[in-house]
């Protein structure tokens, strides 16, 4: 690995210049000739029967081209349990339910027309807590399943549990036990670029959707199913992804607005764009899933963990999207963060009349890590053991196979713990003489770092196409949404092929040209793309070197003619170099065993042109290679909670020092440190960006973010009332350190990094607050009100 020329370099992102220049085109910036603007009529009740929809006034508004309701168009079902309809019929189940839609010649007319749609409702009692929804005799939010069979409860049929070892024996072996209830709220992904799409049909009946999505190929499948529902068969759906203004999981499923845009385009024969404004983004898009956790852990007299028991209840909201599968990902930390022998995990997912939830960075892991790493410190305190020592005592080791069957081929958790402790000066700052109100804390993480198999393929294809000039054009199915996939991939392709990174041209995904990819989630993009690139790059080199046996001597002769006779000519027989003797480095075809005299080097573009435009008698050839990488992982059995779902696992520890104002409850972060084992760092700038960004989202999650709602209506749908961290809030240093384990399955030794940053931030802060002022907050966000109340309760004790 010492021979790498580009991996690990600190270089700018390939899409950076267009972004700093305002040239990158987002969905907001794209129009099509003749395009209409769509707008949606959303429900004004959380749970109600739709008695009547009157669209007549909207229809009459000049500039309106179509008004549709669920009664006007075929039923288009979506969501992985197919319990959601593009346009609702008969009943609404959440405030944001889509009832009708308009296409008009400009966005203002479309919105005005929506306001002219009258809906008469018959309100039904709403169910807004999991307890109410599970109570005996509770009304059913969905009376039938998608096939029409009656259901008997509001439980979402998404079983996820795990049982390993002997829980009762673990409890008997425990000297100390800590237990508690921990909750995490819904939060908003809050991408700066809001959601939107353009749908259009060509005159052959094929559909193109320009979509802000993280799953172009699953969206293609979903939209193809929607066409079938419209009676359109055997037509092509093409999904084109523009520059994406942040997503963080919000683009992991298809959305009603996308189907509505397709329906309006189908209805009008025109391209139709739907673009959410900020209010719609907050009020009508699915936020991060909330959760209630009960956690109990035990240890023996030395602090060795004896068991872990976790019961999760999730308020799913009204329809099923990926929020319902957070427990699948929670299993990773639940079973495998620290060595723990006897584990029980169970999740209950409940339909309510709240907004339905979706993916966000970390996907269950920050939620469950919040509980585990907070509870672990409570256990350590009971046992009278330092929390760092307890983590070191139970630390995961390389080569471990965990209770879930996760195969930890590389694991630098110990180094992460030690590095964090050293950076915080743990022995001198933790629980010992210090200024009042100051404390330090830490929390650890395990995250999937080699994909996360939740679908029958977790693979990725790639196409590397060499042109006549030595450029490598890359078609990859994953999505660059800001995370730096293209930064990492350009370096990996450069390394895999043997060209300079600036000669690697990566286009944003278009399903018409890119090979299949399951989607950009689970920190998987760089890992999958890099492994696919290594395979394709090796094939390209093999073919180039084979042909070089014939082409190279002639090109060297051209060099000699141009340069005059070179030195060392006598010693090196350039006419009989065999394929094993060639190398390709930074765009130059070379001989491994020769010196790097200029006359022995052939520029790749020249070689490619010589190969393409073959001389008389020869056959021209071009170099394009595709590869599909399927990681060696298992699709877990979710009811047993078992299976090695990722090809590598990322570890990390975050440490924080805080100061707590005991009068106001305000928490000030003084400094943070994150020590991360993401394997080998690919692009330093991108890796650092992922960590900084994740940590700051974690700070918002820890201290202030929450989607507030009352009877299903979102109360803070805008940046005025929903605060995300500003630059002034991050007025403390964040120190990053890397533990560069060299993962055997990782491309160039790398593991995924997209999610790690957000995972342990909240418990690290909570643990520091406890160290500072002795109050334990178990419900996020840790607002000043909660701290003050806890301090008051402590005084009262």
């Amino acid at each position, binding site marked *: 690995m010492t021979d790498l020329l580009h991996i690990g370099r600190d270089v700018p992102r390939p899409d950076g210049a267009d972004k700093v220049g*305002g040239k990158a085109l987002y969905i907001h910036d794209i129009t099509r000739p003749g395009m209409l603007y769509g707008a949606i009529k959303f429900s004004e009740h959380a749970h109600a029967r739709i008695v009547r929809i009157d669209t007549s006034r909207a229809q009459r508004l000049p500039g309106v081209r179509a008004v549709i309701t669920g009664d006007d168009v075929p039923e288009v079902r979506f969501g992985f349990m197919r319990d959601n309809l593009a346009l609702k019929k008969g009943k609404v189940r959440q405030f944001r339910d889509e009832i009708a839609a308009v296409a008009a010649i400009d966005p203002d007319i479309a919105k005005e027309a929506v306001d002219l749609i009258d809906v008469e409702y018959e309100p039904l009692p709403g169910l807004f807590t999991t307890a109410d929804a599970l109570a005996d005799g509770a009304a059913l939010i969905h009376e039938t399943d998608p096939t029409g069979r009656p259901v008997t409860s509001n439980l979402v049929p998404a079983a996820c549990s795990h049982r390993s070892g002997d829980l009762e024996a673990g409890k008997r072996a425990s000297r100390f036990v800590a237990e508690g209830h921990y909750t995490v709220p819904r939060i908003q992904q809050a991408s700066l670029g809001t959601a939107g799409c353009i749908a259009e049909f060509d005159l052959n009946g094929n559909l193109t959707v320009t979509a802000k999505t993280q799953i172009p190929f699953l969206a293609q499948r979903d939209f193809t199913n929607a066409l079938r529902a419209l009676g359109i068969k055997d037509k092509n759906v093409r999904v084109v992804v523009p520059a*994406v203004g942040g997503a963080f999981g919000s683009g992991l499923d298809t959305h009603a607005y996308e189907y509505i845009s397709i329906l309006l385009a189908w209805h009008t024969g025109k391209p139709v764009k739907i673009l959410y404004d900020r209010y719609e983004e907050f009020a009508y898009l699915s936020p991060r899933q909330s959760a209630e956790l009960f956690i109990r852990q035990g240890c023996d007299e030395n602090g060795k963990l004896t068991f872990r028991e976790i019961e999760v209840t999730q308020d799913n909201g009204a329809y099923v999207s990926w929020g319902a599968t957070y427990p699948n990902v929670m299993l990773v930390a639940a079973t495998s963060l620290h060595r723990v022998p006897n584990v029980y995990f169970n999740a209950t997912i409940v339909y309510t009349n709240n907004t339905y939830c979706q993916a966000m960075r970390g996907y269950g892991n920050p939620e469950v890590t919040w509980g585990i790493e907070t509870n672990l410190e409570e256990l350590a305190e009971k046992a009278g053991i330092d929390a760092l020592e307890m983590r070191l005592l139970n630390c995961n080791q390389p080569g471990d196979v965990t209770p879930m069957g996760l195969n930890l081929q590389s694991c630098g958790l110990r180094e992460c713990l030690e590095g964090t402790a050293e950076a915080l000066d743990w022995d001198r700052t933790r629980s010992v003489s210090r200024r009042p109100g100051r404390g330090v804390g830490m929390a650890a993480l395990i995250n999937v770092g080699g994909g996360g198999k939740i679908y029958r393929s977790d693979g990725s294809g790639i196409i590397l196409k060499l042109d006549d000039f030595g450029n490598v054009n890359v078609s990859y199915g994953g999505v660059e949404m800001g995370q730096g996939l293209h930064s990492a991939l350009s370096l990996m392709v450069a390394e895999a092929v043997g060209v300079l990174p600036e000669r690697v041209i990566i286009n944003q995904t278009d399903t018409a040209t890119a090979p299949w990819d399951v989607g950009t989630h689970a920190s998987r993009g760089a890992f999958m793309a890099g492994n696919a690139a290594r395979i394709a790059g090796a094939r390209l080199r093999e073919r180039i070197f084979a042909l070089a046996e014939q082409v190279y001597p002639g090109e060297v002769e051209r060099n000699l003619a141009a340069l005059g006779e070179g030195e060392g000519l006598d010693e090196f027989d350039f006419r009989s170099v065999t394929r094993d003797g060639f190398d390709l480095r930074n765009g130059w075809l070379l001989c491994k065993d020769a010196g790097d005299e200029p006359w022995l080097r052939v520029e790749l573009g020249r070689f490619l042109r010589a190969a393409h435009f073959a001389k008389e008698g020869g056959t021209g050839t071009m170099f394009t290679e595709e590869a599909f990488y399927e990681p060696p992982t298992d699709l877990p059995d979710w009811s047993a909670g078992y299976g090695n779902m990722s090809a590598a696992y990322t570890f990390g520890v975050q440490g924080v020092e805080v100061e707590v104002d005991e009068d106001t409850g305000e928490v000030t972060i003084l400094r943070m440190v994150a020590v991360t084992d993401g394997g080998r760092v690919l692009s330093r700038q991108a890796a650092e960006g992922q960590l900084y960004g994740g940590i700051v989202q974690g700070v918002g999650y820890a201290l202030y973010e929450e989607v507030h709602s009352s009877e299903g209506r979102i109360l803070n749908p805008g940046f005025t009332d929903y605060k*995300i961290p500003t*630059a*002034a809030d991050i007025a403390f240093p964040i120190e990053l350190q890397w533990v560069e384990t060299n993962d055997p399955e990782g491309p160039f030794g790398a593991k995924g990094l997209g999610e790690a940053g957000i995972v342990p931030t909240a418990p690290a802060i909570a643990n520091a607050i406890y160290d500072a002022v002795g109050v334990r907050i178990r419900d996020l966000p840790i607002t000043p009100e909660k701290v003050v109340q806890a301090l008051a309760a402590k005084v009262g004790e």
Partner: protein
Amino acid sequence: MKVEVGFRLNGYEVRAEVEPHLRLLDVLRDTLGETGTKEGCGEGECGACTVLVDGAAINSCLFPVCEAAGTSVMTVEGLAEANGALSPIQRAFLDHGGAQCGFCTPGIVMAGVALLAENPNPSDAEIRYSLTGNLCRCTGYVQIVAAIRAAAVATRGERGD
């Protein structure tokens, strides 16, 4: 009823027949086709639409286009040289990882331009304070602050300060 509004945009005189209720942002993006300036919230909270009017950073989503009449407006499109060479602050954002998804970037770059014009040698705290009206969800601001710090040094160097 439309009105004619004229102002200087990135050094060139522009005139447009517009509905008088429009925001400067609408006219820049929809009428003049300069889509580099972004709309992130439409209510002056996120700063993605930041442009300079007579050198002052403003939220163009809250700025009536009629108020721009006779002023000099600068947007992100006006920073790079005609040959495409990035300005020092743009270069610094590129080199220091100040852009990720890039949607907030044009606004933040313009806020940075305004800051450095007013204060060529800002402290980190001053940089952070000056950006409180510009939200970024991707970067955690660390690399943005580093970029503006570096741009300050580069800009001073260019002027020989």
